[in-house]
């Protein structure tokens, strides 16, 4: 194990955002997620992709769960644990319609549904749950170090 791996193996950092369902907060989240990804060890391009995926998940909450209402509550937990980044988003808006998640065909000129494809392409695991306490989106990505 290299010195850098020894360092990141014990890395554990959690950042929580509690915010209104307003797009104006998204740049703050993007800056943090991008830096977390780089701290774990991803390069610039991968860090950008992870940032985009989480930005898309939050945008979906604002657009679809709260229908653009600015007074919804959105909680985002980001956890860097070893070589993995884990995210959880909770909201109390309208539950997601499973039939509409990734319903768009890729590579076409249809306008909607791009975000969910980005999330699934970028992250290793993705799940959506509607619970009595609200909606929960979870996603994770593990860093693959060269052997």
């Amino acid at each position, binding site marked *: 194990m290299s010195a850098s791996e020894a360092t990141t193996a014990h890395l554990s950092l959690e950042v929580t955002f509690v915010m209104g369902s307003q*797009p104006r907060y*998204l740049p703050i989240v993007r800056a943090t997620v991008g830096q977390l990804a780089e701290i774990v060890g991803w390069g610039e391009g991968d860090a950008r992709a992870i940032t985009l995926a989480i930005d*898309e998940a939050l*945008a979906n909450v604002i657009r679809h769960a709260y229908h653009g209402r600015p007074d919804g509550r959105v909680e985002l937990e980001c956890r860097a644990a070893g070589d993995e980044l884990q995210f959880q988003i909770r909201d109390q808006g309208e539950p997601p319609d499973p039939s509409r998640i990734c319903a768009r065909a*890729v*590579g076409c000129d249809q306008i909607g549904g791009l975000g969910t494809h980005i999330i699934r392409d970028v992250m290793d695991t993705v799940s959506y749950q509607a619970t009595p306490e609200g909606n929960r989106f979870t996603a994770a990505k593990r860093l693959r170090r060269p052997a």
Partner: protein
Amino acid sequence: MTITVRQSPAARIVDLEGEIDLGTSPKLRRTLFDQLKETPKLALNLQALRYIDSSGIATLIEVLKDAKNLGKEFVLFGMTPAVRDVFRLTHVNRIFLIFETEEDAIARA
């Protein structure tokens, strides 16, 4: 996000600077649709664009469709690696006419 519009002999050019996301894409949409009404050739400069999300990509697709319906041209140029990654992730590279430089875009436009 800052949007600047200028006119070249061959096309109307829209320069973007900053980030396009859910909050800023409506402004971009209004600007591009307004400009498209006034020119047969619209070119979008992405050189100073640091970030674009799927709402920005969806806006560009809408404008492209409108341009095609009106028999007009809508081209992109100056794509940074960050923006190029999003086009790749959304699989829309082939939908647009994308050029490296303004000169190339105008010559084709």
